[in-house]
């Protein structure tokens, strides 16, 4: 470990805001990592598989066929149509191929699709949208085909597994059967689209229910707030880190290309940066999310598209300054190539302000994302996200008669959110103090 690094670390860890910030963030990181244990998701179980598992636990010879029966029932429920669907869609794919070769008219293809929708193999929208967005529909059909192909293959494998089980007995049977059951479990979750980030409904009434032993943060809109806050930690990290990382890389690239090549390229890139900066960030992100379609991913894309400019400007200014440093000149005189001059001499001395800025942006990105979710434009319904929970809270608090009645709906997600952002801001502040060039020498 280098001397300088040690000194920096020491300065960092004697800085009170760094300590508080890091502590808060470590706390959140632990929560994010251990979310499945802190707030275990209610994993849906298949009845047949559940029974099979119970039978396996106190296994005896006569249970064997009961178990196999349960597995077969599961297979029937899950894969009964797999083969048919697969064949039908394969035929459709052939028609599409012919359509591409102009052997089949678009009306014939449309008729074929209609046929499948009539059998409920395909969603009716494929037929309805066919004329408007033919290419898109075909693309989606191919995706559909791939999905069904996969399902069909899995059905074949599963059936083989069950047949194999029939041939073995005793210890070996139990060992294999447990494996098979857990494999089927996974298939089941995939088939019903289980996602732990979707907060499950825990009550039937919509009115918020105050904290209790089972639901320590209370319940709002049928969702357990504790579950949402814990899993929302992951969402916050994901949004903050991914958005800031990608937008920083884009900004770094654009800014350093502009600074290094100069001339008209710099002019063009910096004017583009100016243009992007001339659009109000929050509104731009809101509009782009709306256009791309709601959802976490689209929201993140929107935040990235309008979030790289500060980095670009910052790194460009820094590089322009560093370019005239004498050590850069000396390296040039030694014959060091342009690439290594950038990587070894310029970037290491210019990157820190960018990283500090990125740290500071994480907090505000998470706030913006939560604000979008709060407006109902970000995370989908029921997604574990602090902004979404807070938006439920607003309806109850504003509509409520007694102001203190629903305090818990805003308190916990609000505190999580504030602490998270404060953590990043403190860290950024501390980094700035530690790396401030005026504090060197």
């Amino acid at each position, binding site marked *: 470990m280098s001397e300088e690094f040690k000194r920096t670390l020491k300065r960092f860890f004697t800085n009170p805001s760094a300590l508080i910030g890091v502590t808060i963030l470590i706390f959140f990181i632990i929560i994010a990592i251990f979310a499945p244990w802190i707030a275990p998701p209610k994993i849906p179980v298949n009845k047949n598989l559940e029974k099979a598992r119970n039978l396996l636990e106190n296994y005896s010879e006569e249970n064997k066929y009961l178990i196999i029966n349960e597995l077969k029932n599961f297979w029937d429920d899950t894969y009964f149509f797999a083969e048919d669907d697969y064949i039908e869609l394969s035929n459709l794919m052939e028609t599409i191929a012919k359509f591409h070769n102009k052997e089949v008219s678009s009306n014939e293809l449309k008729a074929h699709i209609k046929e499948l929708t009539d059998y409920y193999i395909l969603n009716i929208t494929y037929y309805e949208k066919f004329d408007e967005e033919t290419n898109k529909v075909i693309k989606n059909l191919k995706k559909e085909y791939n999905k069904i192909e996969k399902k069909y293959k899995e059905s074949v494998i599963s059936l083989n597994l069950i047949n194999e089980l029939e041939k073995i007995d005793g210890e070996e049977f139990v060992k294999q059967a447990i494996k098979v059951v857990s494999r089927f479990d996974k298939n089941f979750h995939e088939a019903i689209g289980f996602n732990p980030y979707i907060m499950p409904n825990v009550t039937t009434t919509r009115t918020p229910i105050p904290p209790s032993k089972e639901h320590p943060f209370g319940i709002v809109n049928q969702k357990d707030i504790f579950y949402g806050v814990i899993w929302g930690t992951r969402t916050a990290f994901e949004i903050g880190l991914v958005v800031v990382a990608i937008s920083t890389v884009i900004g770094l690239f654009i800014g350093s290309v502009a600074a290094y090549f100069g001339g008209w390229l710099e002019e063009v890139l910096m004017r583009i940066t100016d*243009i992007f900066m001339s659009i109000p960030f929050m*509104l731009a992100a809101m509009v782009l999310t709306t256009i791309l379609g709601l959802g976490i991913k689209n929201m993140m894309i929107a935040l990235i598209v309008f979030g790289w400019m500060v980095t670009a400007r910052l790194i460009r200014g820094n590089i322009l300054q560093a370019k005239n440093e004498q050590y850069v000149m000396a390296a040039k005189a030694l014959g060091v190539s342009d690439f290594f001059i950038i990587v070894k001499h310029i970037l290491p001395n210019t990157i820190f302000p960018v990283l500090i800025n990125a740290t500071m942006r994480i907090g505000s990105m998470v706030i913006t994302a939560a604000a979008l979710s709060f407006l109902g434009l970000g995370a989908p319904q029921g997604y574990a996200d602090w902004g979404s929970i807070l938006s439920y809270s607003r309806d109850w608090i504003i509509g409520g008669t007694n102001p203190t009645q629903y305090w818990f709906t805003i308190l916990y997600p609000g505190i999580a959110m504030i602490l998270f952002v404060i953590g990043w801001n403190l860290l950024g502040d501390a980094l700035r103090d530690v790396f401030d060039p005026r504090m060197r020498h």
Partner: protein
Amino acid sequence: MTTYIIRRLLLLPLIILGVTLIVFSMSQLLGPLKLLSTYVDPNTYAKMSERDIQILMKQYGLTDPFPVRYGKWVKNLLKGDLGWSVVGKEPVLDALIHRFPYTIELALYALFPIIGVGIWLGVTAAVHHNSFIDQFIRIFALIGWSLPDFVWAILVLLIFYIGLGWFPPGNLSIWANQIVKSASFKNYTHLLTIDALLNGRIDIFWDALRHIIGPVIAISWLWWANLLRITRSSMLEVLRKDYVRTARSKGLPEKVVINKHARKNALIPVVTTAGQMVIGLLTGVVIVEMVFVRTGLGSFAATAAQQLDYASIMGVLLFTSLLLIIGNLIIDISYAIIDPRIRLG
């Protein structure tokens, strides 16, 4: 400096053109059919047959190549045709014009408390550098910075409306609204408080003011934090400078030193931040307007987005971008006039 200003002015059309290009490209991600729905009002659209749609698509040039579509769109823009606003039930431009005064009014009332208190806090912190007061103000700033605006806005509503019953949401109470909408009430400026005074209705003035204070409190904390940070650090920098030391060593009382010598010079960066704040207030008080159910550009944009009213959100985006561009231009030029050092940049 003149060349700097001329350069900025010449770049202006380029920037505006660039912004329109970005906004237009974004709208094109929608695909032709959704776009068509932004041109016609929804009642007509619902009744149209497939053939009508095809014809209309041709008519609006939705099947043309990109540059042609862009050209047509810009031409419409220049004519003031931004499409039909579903949310506003009127053309988008009219909807914008009707809502803008509410946003201006809120910004006006927010401006003075924010700047006054923000600068005061910043100067106080700098003067008492590293003391208990300084620490306290810094923590205050940190929280303001980290507090999501919607959480704070809800809390304000909770405390001041539901708790104390002082500052209700909305623009006006129902009785006041009826009077304002009636023919006898003249709209001179479209700013509620001012019109109320001009009409001699003190009661309506108070009512409008009561409705505006909550949002102002909700907006303020974040901007206090921004402003006091800038003021504090530039104040500290100036206090270290030689002429302040000289003034001190001349034996001038501390108060005079701070007021006459330090504060004036420290205020230059503060002016920029204040300018940015004004732009921010005019272009993006989405959350606060939504929480307080106020009419304005922000709530218009959010409602339009929620209802997938594409024409309206495009319109708001263009309009606010234009505000942002012009606002930044004014800030930069006045900055260049105040501080000659950046003139060549």
